[in-house]
């Protein structure tokens, strides 16, 4: 399915340097905020606070981190002039595409997990609850899967992929899908939240972030799988049909 050498190489390129730390920190902001905001509060309030902050704040900060990691996977190779070292190798284009995505989702998942772990440890230490934050991990990882599935091919195709990603998160997901009922299903963050919401009982304030999307692990997972398959198919087609340089 994937070429391990290629996946390992792209993963290493993504996780070398300061970028992985910066994106992990960005992913951790929601958990940190929840910890600080919940300190001194009743356990029930603090727990509710955690869910509200994760569903709302992480939609901005985590999304940025995930899309940057996705866009960078092949964009770095193109901009750095090193794509030919990978392209001119006996790797089937579909395998190339899935390897690039796999590397990206591993790197994004690493940043997301670190970010989630900050909140998990914070809730564990302050509330004594080591299970409260567990369902949120599903949302973090689902976001990693979904955003990288879209932005790895976008990063390959377009030099301004991160800017397009920011427009997707802050205009499409934050504004348009809220205004137009039915478009919520196209939001990766809401898909991630639908999985989260099905795994735990979210307070009303947190459920608002879901909009009209129904909580469901199965539907959420299916959507993500379809997104991954579509993203990989688009990238495969692009690798075959368009100029690499």
């Amino acid at each position, binding site marked *: 399915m994937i070429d391990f050498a290629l996946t390992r190489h792209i993963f290493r390129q993504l996780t070398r340097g300061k970028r992985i730390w910066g994106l992990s920190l960005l992913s951790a*902001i929601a958990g940190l905020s929840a910890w*600080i905001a919940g*300190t*001194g509060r009743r356990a029930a309030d603090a727990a509710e606070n955690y869910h509200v902050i994760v569903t709302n704040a992480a939609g901005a900060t985590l999304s*940025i981190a995930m899309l*940057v990691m996705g866009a960078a996977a092949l964009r770095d190779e193109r901009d750095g002039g090193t794509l030919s070292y990978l392209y001119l190798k006996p790797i089937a284009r579909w395998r190339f595409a899935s390897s690039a995505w796999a590397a990206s989702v591993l790197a994004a998942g690493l940043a997301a997990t670190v970010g989630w772990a900050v909140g998990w440890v914070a809730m564990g230490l302050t509330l004594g609850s080591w299970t409260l934050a567990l369902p949120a991990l599903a949302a973090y990882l689902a976001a990693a899967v979904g955003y990288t599935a879209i932005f790895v091919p976008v990063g390959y195709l377009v030099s301004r*992929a*991160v800017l397009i*990603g920011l427009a997707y998160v*802050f205009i499409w997901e934050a504004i348009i899908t809220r205004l137009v009922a039915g478009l919520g299903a196209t939001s990766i963050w809401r898909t991630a939240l639908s999985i989260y919401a099905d795994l735990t009982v979210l307070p009303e304030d947190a459920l608002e972030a879901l909009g009209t999307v129904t909580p469901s692990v199965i539907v959420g997972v299916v959507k993500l799988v379809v997104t991954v398959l579509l993203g990989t198919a688009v990238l495969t087609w692009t690798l075959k049909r368009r100029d690499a340089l």
Partner: protein
Amino acid sequence: MSNTVIYDRGYRSYGGVRKGQSSIRWAIARDGIRRVLGLRRKARRKIFPWTLLSIGLMMAVVVIGFHFAAGSIGGGFEESLPSYANLFDVYSWVSLLFIAITGPELLGPDRSQGVLNVYFSRPMRVTDYLGGKLLAFLVVAGAIYVVPQLLLHIGLAALSDQGFLGYLGSHLDILWKVPAVTLGFLALNGGVLAIISSYVDRTGIAAASYIGVLTAGGGLAGALAQAGFPGSRFLSLLALADHPRYVRDWIFDVDLLRYTPEVHGFAPWVSAVVIAVVAVGGGWWTVRRYRRLA
């Protein structure tokens, strides 16, 4: 005897008019404006900035449309419709994105393409270079705020019962309020962007970092300020994105939202001071950074 002489002209340095430092700054500003707006460049470089600018203008048209509809219906609804103050919020994410690309696009490419040495081999100081970039930033980023407001002003004047000139005459305060609020947004965002853009070469990453600092910083500041330890309220001042909007409410004498510094007992003039500190601090740090690079 022939009077014919062939002169050996040899190499001569330029002996014509030399313009001053202000022309250097203007040349850099002009290049920066073109770069950000994609002027004299391929069509695809224009898509992002002009789409965002168009959305801003459309928002102004939509608000004018609401006012027109309310005027037709009657019943005094106009008072509750968006106006100058809240137009800043109506397309706030669009303006944020626009500014997010402006700053990095002005500073990053010169470093990443390695042409900084070419610039500083000319008779140009770091302050001339950054002054030109600042001018470009003010013109371009200012446009996303000012142009829709100008359109709104003209639209409301055209719809007013007082007549066009009558409305303009009775709303002269708009002519200083909108630029003042715009300056507040530009000063704060510019200060933050200058620091980020002077370190991060790539436009997309710098933009993402800037948005991350504003959104994440705001959330964290709010949480930290509520923590309750001694002095924690001062951490509310780290909600940087709230300061220009708090000052906006102060200038327009409205109360649109509750801002984190406001919730923790700070007056709007404190926000104005914070904006000034961020702007001056960001500018100073950027000059320092570029003096090392030059």
